[in-house]
C-alpha cells in the first residue's frame, strides 16, 4: 500500500520563522504480512485420531512489515533560505511511513483476515493429507 508523509520541522529561531524551515513530502510504498508463527505449535496442539485431526494454532501476529525502497521517493523537499538541511528528516519520514502502513493494516483487521485465510489454507492442506474430519482452533491473545 502507498502512504504520503508530509513532515516539517518547527521553526527553531526567528530566522527560520521568517524564511522557512525544512519540509519534505515522501511517497512511500509498504507491505505488512500477518499470519501464524507455526514454530509456536506444540505437541499438545495436534491431536490425531484415525481420519480426524484437531489443531490449535497460536494467535496470528505481524510476521513482517517494511517500506519498499524501490518504490519510495521524495516528491518535494523545501529548505528555508540559508537554513542547513536536516539530514535526519528523510529517515524520520521513512520510519513514520512504516508505522503508518502498520497502523493502516491494524485498523483494517489484518489479524482477523490472517486468521480467516490461515485456517482456510490449513484446513485444505489437512484434508488433502486424507483427514476427513478437521477441527482448527486459534488460541486467544494472552
Amino acid at each position: 500500500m502507498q502512504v504520503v508523509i508530509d513532515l516539517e520541522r518547527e521553526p527553531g529561531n526567528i530566522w527560520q520563522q521568517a524564511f522557512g524551515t525544512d519540509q519534505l513530502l515522501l511517497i512511500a510504498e509498504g507491505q505488512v504480512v500477518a499470519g501464524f508463527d507455526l514454530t509456536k505449535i506444540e505437541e499438545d496442539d495436534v491431536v490425531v485420531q484415525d481420519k480426524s485431526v484437531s489443531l490449535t494454532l497460536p494467535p496470528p501476529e505481524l510476521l513482517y512489515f517494511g517500506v519498499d525502497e524501490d518504490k519510495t521517493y521524495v516528491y518535494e523537499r523545501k529548505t528555508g533560505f540559508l537554513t542547513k538541511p536536516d539530514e535526519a528528516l528523510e529517515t524520520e519520514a521513512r520510519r513514520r511511513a512504516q508505522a503508518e502502513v502498520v497502523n493502516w493494516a491494524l485498523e483494517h483487521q489484518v489479524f482477523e483476515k490472517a486468521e480467516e485465510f490461515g485456517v482456510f489454507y490449513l484446513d485444505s492442506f489437512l484434508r488433502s493429507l486424507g483427514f476427513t474430519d478437521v477441527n482448527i482452533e486459534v488460541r486467544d491473545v494472552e
Partner: protein
Amino acid sequence: MSSNDEPKSFLGRYSVFIALLVAIILLAVVCRMLSGFWPLSPPPPSTPTPIPVPPTPTPTRVTIGDIRPLAELATIEYQAVAEIQDERVPDDFRQYLGIKEQVLLLAYGEVKAGFDLSKLSEEDLWTDGTRAQLHLPPPEILSTSIDYDRTHAVFHRGTLLMSRDINWEGEIYDTAQDSIRQGAIEAGILEDAARYGQLYYENFLRSLGFTEVQVIVD
C-alpha cells in the same frame, strides 16, 4: 540659489525612496511572522539548542490499500548491516575545485526467506496410509526490510555550492536494501530456508501420524 536647491531635493527624494524600500521589506518580514505563526501557535520556547526540534507531521494519507491472502512459510531470518558509501560530484568546472557531497550510511535490516505454498499443486503431495511425500517449491526471499530506528548516516559532508538532489538519499536506501538482500543470499539464506523448511514439514507430518515421511525441496 536654485542651483543649491536642486541637489538637495534630489537627495531628499532618494532618501524617501530608500526609507520606503526598507519599510516595505520590514513590513513584509513582520507580516510573514505575524500571519505565519502568531495566530496559530505561541512562539517557540527559547532553548539553548533550538535546532533539534521534532518534525511536525501533517495528516498522513494512505492512498492505496490492498489486502490479499498469502500462503507463505518463512523458515529463516537473517539480520544484516550494510555500509553504503556514496558521493555526488558536479559535472561542470566545480569538480576541479574538489566540490562534492559525500555520505556514509550504516543500514540495518532483516531478510526473511521461505516458501510460497500457493505454488504447491495436487501432484506435490502424496499420501498412502502412514506414508507421505511432499514436494516443496524452491525457497525464495519473502521480505527485506530496513530498521529505520538503527539506520543512520555515520558521515555526511554537504556543500552550499551544490544544489540538493531530492532522489539521492532514496537511491542510497534502495542500494542499502538491495545490498542487505544480496548479502543474505550470498551468506546462504536460501539454503538454510530449504533445510529448515524440510525439517519443519518432516516434523509436522510425523506429528500428524505419518511414520514414513519424505520432503523434497527443488
